[in-house]
């Protein structure tokens, strides 16, 4: 499944300073959700300091998640089922203003 992952607000520093990452997730028996995407990201994409991005099975509090420009809280959060060509944006708010 092809997705575009985007990072902003400093989150990109944890992913090789790259703001946009096109990814292709392998076929899976169970549908991909944000929960399983995060696990895949931790294993395949996170360059350093996983604890700054992931806490438990979710993102660290202070990191906002938008799916196709929509707040993930409107879309079932971690359980949202990813669709082909979805754009997932992770914006960190954890920095000075």
């Amino acid at each position, binding site marked *: 499944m092809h997705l575009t992952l985007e990072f902003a607000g400093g989150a990109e520093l944890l992913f090789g300073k790259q703001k946009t990452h096109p990814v292709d997730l392998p076929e899976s028996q169970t549908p991909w959700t944000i929960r399983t995407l995060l696990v895949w990201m931790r294993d395949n994409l996170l360059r350093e300091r996983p604890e700054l991005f992931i806490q438990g099975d979710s993102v660290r*509090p202070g990191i906002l998640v938008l799916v196709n420009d929509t*707040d993930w809280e*409107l879309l079932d*959060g971690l359980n949202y089922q990813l669709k082909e060509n979805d754009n997932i944006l992770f914006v960190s708010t954890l920095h*000075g*203003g």
Partner: protein
Amino acid sequence: MPSATCVSCQGQRPAALVRPKTSEPYCKVCFFEAFEREIHETIVKEQLFKPGETIAVAASGGKDSTVLAHVLKLLNERHSYGLKLVLLSIDEGITGYRDDSLETVKRNQQQYDLPLIILTYKELYGWSMDEIVKAVGRKNNCTFCGVFRRQALDRGAMKLSVNKIATGHNADDIAETILMNILRGDIARLKRCTSIITGDESDENEGSVIPRCKPLKYAYEKEIVLYAFYKRLDYFSTECLYSPNAYRGNIRTYIKDLERLRPSSIIDIIHSGEQVLVKQTAKMPVQR
């Protein structure tokens, strides 16, 4: 999971976010309208400005001050506040952090078409933050930097002949400060930190400093970030090199966890902090 209909326009437009303040779904247009209107209401209710005043917006290039500059300019025009706005930036001399963020402020100056003045610690005090940290080590750096910066803002404001300074402190910042002061037992600071205006003539202790105010006091950090994102506002976002050791970091983590459980916690902490009254007989901590 909240329904996907904007509570404000009742489904005229698809909901795009859940506002942490109210836990209600909003579409982008209604969110912009509510966000801007609430700041306007804060400004009016707390009488932050008077027509004809010159206001220095403390600008770091970060998310809060960028949104503050954008919204103040917009509201000034929309509601005819009659204010003259200028951008005031302080360069503490932190390589890899402040030098980059100042580039953003310079772009903001172009984008918002506002005058900009930049003052540096080196000019004012003879030391940059990098030099200070090298001399004293990586401890309590934020404490010194905060004090120097506040004084630098005052000096800059006097140079520009402004009447007030507006800073971008948001609801999360103020909730953090309240908790920090409670945990440290600093009741003197606790009393001051919930004031939306500090340093005006009525406060004898403040002496002749320039009054400063926090128009974003009740705006959630999440909403500031989303506003900036949806409006494609240009801001700089990196953690200061010297901040990881700061005590505030622990409080921030705690507040973020609380917000996840109950989003209204942040505003609730501010309201509680505002209600705290210190007994006349209580001994105030001595400033060390």
